[in-house]
């Protein structure tokens, strides 16, 4: 039995081009553009389909919900120019949103500070936990608007009442998540702190706060979403200024198209609020909070 002898050809020098390939112009730009397209095109397509279905369902003859084309016809000014200001409440949507955001910012800031402090307290102290947690668990289920009459009775004015409603809506998830975070600090970190004899203040800033940051930001993210839900609803009842009032005012004036435009603004603003808090959380916990 014989095997065919392998034949090796005399090795030829292989010409190798060791230079960098010629730079392709716009290569990076094209890659970037295609990534953007992959992110933007699918939702844009979905939106287009939804609008078409909507347009078909509510043709121009239907008197209830306006179709997209009618919204465009009726509320064109509101869509293209969010910045006009004709005095009083006759302003562009940007100004209404800004007013609401200002309230949310203030109310949410207060509830963030109080929420984190209370969360640390009931997370770290067993008796505080036993005393406060059951009460918080009951209070957090009270719907935001149910607080409104009480806060109006207490403050007599629209602005502080709105702030209180935001505060009382958004504080619970912050408290509860912070407390869970504090209770979940690994024993190892606590032991490290004990071996190093960290003082309570050092422990708070060097161990407790960084270890709880991911939990705190989960709470803040839920909280900011809930406070945005609460502000729109409470402004509807309080009147005066703000996007919630705007929606109610347009309803009373039977300008349903304007409401649809306002809803789009409210949704986008809520989305960006959520993203901003999530982004801040990533920055603060430096991207590797849980490991």
């Amino acid at each position, binding site marked *: 039995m014989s095997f065919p002898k392998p034949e090796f050809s005399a090795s030829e020098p292989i010409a190798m081009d060791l230079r960098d390939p010629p730079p392709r112009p716009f290569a990076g730009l094209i890659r970037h553009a295609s990534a953007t397209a992959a992110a933007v095109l699918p939702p844009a397509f979905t939106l287009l389909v939804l609008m078409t279905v909507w347009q078909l369902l509510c043709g121009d003859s239907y008197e209830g919900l306006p179709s997209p084309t009618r919204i465009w016809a009726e509320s064109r000014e509101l869509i293209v120019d969010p910045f006009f200001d004709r005095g009083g409440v006759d302003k562009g949507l940007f100004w209404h949103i800004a007013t609401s955001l200002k309230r949310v910012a203030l109310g949410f800031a207060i509830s963030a500070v109080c929420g984190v402090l209370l969360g640390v307290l009931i997370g770290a102290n067993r008796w505080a936990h036993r005393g406060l947690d059951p009460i918080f668990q009951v209070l957090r289920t009270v719907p935001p608007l149910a607080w409104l009459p009480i806060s109006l009775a207490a403050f007599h004015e629209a602005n502080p009442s709105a702030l209180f409603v935001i505060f009382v809506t958004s504080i619970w998830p912050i408290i509860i998540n912070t407390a869970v975070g504090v209770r979940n600090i*690994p024993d*190892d*970190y606590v*032991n*490290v702190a*004990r*071996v*190093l*004899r*960290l003082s309570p203040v*050092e422990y708070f800033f*060097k*161990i407790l706060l*960084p*270890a709880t*940051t991911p939990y705190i930001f989960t709470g803040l993210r839920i909280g900011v979403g809930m406070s945005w839900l609460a502000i729109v609803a409470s402004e509807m009842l309080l009147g005066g200024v703000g996007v919630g009032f705007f929606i109610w005012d347009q309803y009373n004036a039977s300008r349903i198209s304007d409401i649809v435009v306002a809803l789009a603004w409210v949704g986008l603003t809520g989305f960006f609020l959520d993203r901003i808090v999530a982004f801040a959380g990533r920055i603060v*916990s*430096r991207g*590797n*909070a*849980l*490991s």
Partner: protein
Amino acid sequence: MAKAYLSIEAVGVTFQKGASRSEVLHDINLQVDQGEFVSIIGHSGCGKSTLLNVVAGLIPVTTGAVILDREAVEAPGPERAVVFQNHSLLPWLSVQENVRLAVDKVFAGKKSAAERRDWTLHNLDLVKMTQARDKRPSEISGGMKQRVGIARALAMQPKVLLLDEPFGALDALTRAHLQDSVMEIQTALKNTVLMITHDVDEAVLLSDRIVMMTNGPRAGVGQILAVDLARPRDRLAVAGNPTYIAGRASVIEFLYARRAA
């Protein structure tokens, strides 16, 4: 008789949870000299980690006392630095910052900021982690994390270094490598070391004396074996040495034959 550097005297630990009491350690006596490397070996659950935590001050004694350098141990402190089993580095700090946290705390007011920085780098250099000093714990391997844990403990200049199964979570090759590093460092710095382990070879290779613990509950010191091998020890050369083989055999005999439960 002169008092030993580290003296564990008639230590007993009883945990009480509600009505149930469990006596974990019973009448433990152990004297450790300065510069000595002592291992504590025993089956898991025998309370050897509890004993280490007692020496660290993390768990209070129920009876007896631990005396280090003529002072009773009452609370945790940096003169009894612990290398924890699972490294317990703070994940939000870089390697260097983890060590620096300990250095800043222990040497506050004693060293200038520049000296503390140099001391941090010096200790990272001891465990060969200078390269990775700006990495975060999540970015380095388990063996490297344990190295940093050791550097952090060494940087506290402890009177006694407490190692709680420091190589338990590592693969065999990394473990051997790290054992060699620890031997090297111990030879150079003459640290007093108390190490918990469940690895027979590790105990015989690293220790001057091996403390074998009986099974819990009411665990105590069963037997103490002196390992008379010259240092520095080389794991290859030592493997065929009769003293090594005999030591290994008697530890295994204690663990598996006499104490079989």
